[in-house]
């Protein structure tokens, strides 16, 4: 995501395209809510969808107040942005290729989506007041620095790490943060002894469909122009999703029956893995990247189940592990004719090393900061609802609403 050069020229084609892409990415946030909502028990279905909307609304305000500035303000030691854009000062209708305001809101929908993915880790047991506090602190302390490192001129960008649309910023960060949260908040009551099957699989598939659809805006839009690179990223995105869906389907089929949740999970695994790579690899490279991501993430899911981690909506397995795989695959498959940088396969092994360093730091930062943040909030106000509220379900206990039988 390079900011186009040449101040003052607004490209109407690019502006129209990014406006549409922004709306597409926005739809991914309720998409995550529907995806997660269908996966939980019926008594928590509304709660999961509501968490996605709350996440989006909170980040929307935080971003225009100071979040955008922390991520994209002038660089301070490669770590964080300055506050000159706070309250959108100096962010107006002028811009480089697209209006600054459009760039700001395009970045905002990514931040909202990322927080929505994190809710996986606290499904069916989070106290909503604690989530609001956690959400504001997390997006400020974890998301904003990570966005600055990759796209705002921070150390990762200076080092030459490639992250086209958010493999580290969005996916590794949300996946490992969800795992840290799940470990701090603890397992759901009855986890391991009671069956907790998805209550509404059509809703999971609908949410997955919205994610796949919105991902075109996410990846193609990250070209920040309506050009050939956007088209290349668009094609790579779809190819990776399809390859991931099919590889997960086959792996699940070998072990039993090919469930529909597995197919859509495989598609999302492919989409996650192609996210950092979409603008750097040839669309044909999306086949091995997507297919391998389906298998790697399925393996991560089985690993998670074996270890009894109650991160049961699998943000870690799909977004976290898929994000790591995608970031490394970018260092392998990148080719200069697409994005200007060669990877391992094209004679530049150093790129893979840079990608690995970036991944290691982001994993450690996201997991570590989230773990500490969750511990502090748990000690101060308690992350979790009471046992009785958890039994009745968060829909009634937290929202006073329920899905009719």
């Amino acid at each position: 995501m390079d900011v186009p050069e040449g101040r003052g020229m607004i490209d109407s084609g690019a502006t129209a395209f990014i406006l549409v892409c922004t709306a597409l990415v926005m739809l991914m946030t309720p998409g995550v809510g529907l995806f997660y909502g269908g996966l939980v028990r019926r008594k928590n279905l509304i709660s999961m969808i509501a968490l996605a909307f709350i996440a989006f609304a909170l980040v929307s305000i935080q971003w225009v107040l100071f979040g955008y500035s922390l991520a994209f303000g002038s660089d301070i030691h490669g770590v964080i942005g300055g506050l000159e854009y706070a309250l959108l000062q100096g962010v107006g209708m002028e811009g480089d290729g697209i209006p600054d305001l459009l760039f700001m809101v395009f970045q905002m929908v990514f931040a909202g989506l990322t927080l929505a993915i994190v809710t996986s880790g606290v499904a069916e047991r989070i106290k909503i007041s604690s989530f609001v506090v956690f959400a504001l602190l997390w997006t400020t302390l974890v998301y904003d620095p990570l966005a600055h490192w990759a796209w705002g001129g921070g150390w990762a960008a200076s080092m030459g790490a490639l992250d086209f649309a958010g493999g580290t910023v969005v996916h590794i960060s949300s996946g490992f943060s969800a795992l840290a949260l799940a470990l701090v908040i603890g397992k759901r009551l009855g986890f391991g002894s009671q069956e907790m099957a998805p209550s509404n699989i059509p809703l999971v598939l609908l949410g997955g469909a919205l994610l796949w659809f919105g991902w075109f805006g996410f990846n193609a839009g990250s070209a920040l122009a309506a050009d050939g690179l956007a088209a290349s990223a668009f094609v790579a995105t779809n190819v990776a999703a399809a390859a991931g869906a099919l590889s997960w389907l086959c792996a699940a089929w070998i072990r039993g029956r090919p469930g529909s949740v597995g197919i859509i999970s495989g598609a999302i695994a492919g989409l996650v893995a192609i996210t950092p790579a979409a603008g750097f690899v040839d669309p044909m490279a999306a086949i091995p990247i997507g297919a391998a991501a389906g298998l790697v993430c399925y393996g991560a899911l089985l690993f998670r189940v074996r270890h009894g981690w109650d991160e049961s909506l699998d943000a870690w397995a799909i977004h976290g592990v898929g994000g790591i795989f995608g970031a490394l695959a970018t260092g392998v498959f990148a080719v200069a004719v697409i994005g200007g940088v060669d990877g391992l396969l094209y004679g530049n092994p150093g790129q893979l090393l840079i990608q690995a360093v970036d991944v290691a730091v982001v994993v450690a930062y996201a997991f570590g900061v989230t773990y500490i943040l969750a511990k502090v909030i748990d000690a101060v106000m308690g992350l979790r609802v009471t046992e009785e509220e958890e039994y009745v379900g968060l829909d009634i206990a937290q929202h006073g609403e329920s899905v009719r039988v």
Partner: protein
Amino acid sequence: MKMVTAVIRPEKFDPVRAALEADGINGMTVSEVMGRGAQKGISLQFRGKTMPVELIPKVKIEMVVPDADVDRVLRIVREHGRTGKPGDGRIFVLPVESICRVRTDQSDPSDP
């Protein structure tokens, strides 16, 4: 013949069903229901106020068994459906007049 109707916690259905099956009791009709007992549901605290939840989801299992098996069924449902806290449910035992099979014209009082 007796009809045994057990209204139990949804999360206890699987262990109860497995235990009944292990003891050779397979036939049952199962429904998801809402209900309440003497406590009129439960109350949650919300911002210092009491918020009643009057109906709680339960699973209802209906089984028709020979008189001699009733005690065994009751024992299994109690053993595997119990948490010890209010809300574990109730078991009702009713007499059954006759059993008619739909597939054939057979009416056999000792059908199951």
